[in-house]
């Protein structure tokens, strides 16, 4: 994939996403389903994004690096930063419209759909289609979901603990 196309895909999916992980289902469909990156690379990017400093959404930088090195990382950073930078000034101009009932419904509809898409993506990462997950992997997935929902444990700890479990049980 050439840099311009990569940038446009990242901008489009970031612009349509709610929250740091909101672009995950969109990018998975655009990049994994088309064979540009593998699911393993996507998982690596998500894990590194969780281990690294900064906001959740920076996992896209890791994904960009895997696709096109430092240039890809830079493109991903710009692409993921651009939509909020455009939307923030727009909210100041259109504040009254943003507080309207239809807009509240629009945001709710997009949030609910993103939630459903993220649920499906999460399930397919725990139980990949076409390959059987081990019992311990299913338990790791359930435990990670519960711990993330509760929000009491730093995500990096969950990632490191799961990697250690993989080293113990995954060989």
């Amino acid at each position, binding site marked *: 994939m050439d840099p311009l196309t990569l940038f446009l895909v990242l901008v*489009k999916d970031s612009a349509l996403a709610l*929250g740091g*992980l909101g672009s995950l*289902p*969109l990018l998975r*469909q655009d990049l994994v389903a088309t064979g540009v990156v593998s699911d*393993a690379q996507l*998982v*690596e*990017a998500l894990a*590194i994004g969780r281990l*690294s*400093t*900064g906001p959740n959404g*920076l*996992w896209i930088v*890791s994904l960009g*690096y*895997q696709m096109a090195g430092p240039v890809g*990382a830079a493109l991903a*950073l710009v692409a993921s*930063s651009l939509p909020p930078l455009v939307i923030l000034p727009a909210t100041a101009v259109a504040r009254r419209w943003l507080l309207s*009932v*239809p*807009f*509240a*419904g*629009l*945001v*709710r*509809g*997009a*949030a*609910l*759909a993103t*939630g*459903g*898409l*993220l*649920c499906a*993506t*999460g399930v397919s*990462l*725990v139980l*990949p289609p076409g390959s059987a997950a081990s019992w311990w*992997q*299913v338990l*790791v*997935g359930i435990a990670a*979901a*519960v*711990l*993330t*929902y509760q929000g009491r444990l730093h995500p990096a700890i969950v*990632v490191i603990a*799961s*990697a250690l479990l*993989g080293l113990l*049980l*995954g060989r």
Partner: protein
Amino acid sequence: MMVPAATITALMTAAYSVIADQPLAHAALAGMAPATGGMTLGLAIVLVRGALRHGSRAIVDIAVVALAFAVLLLTNVSSVGVIVGTATFGALFLGRERPTSPEGAAE
């Protein structure tokens, strides 16, 4: 503010790519893959919880979530189409109760 964190992320990715083909990295990935899936699921539930309305209206909201879930898992329909479609549906039918908290408004 984003540049230092992005630089660290890129450097971590570069460091990981050096060992990515090692058997130990593959074993670690076997643990990290379901964990990232579970974390995605957990965040999705938090997102949905923030957007759900109360009472009988929650049934419609849950149906939208279930529809998006099923579309991604069972069909080849574009995720962008799902989001645009449900956002349009939301603007027409889901806006009767305004978000009353920053969580509800943002999520």
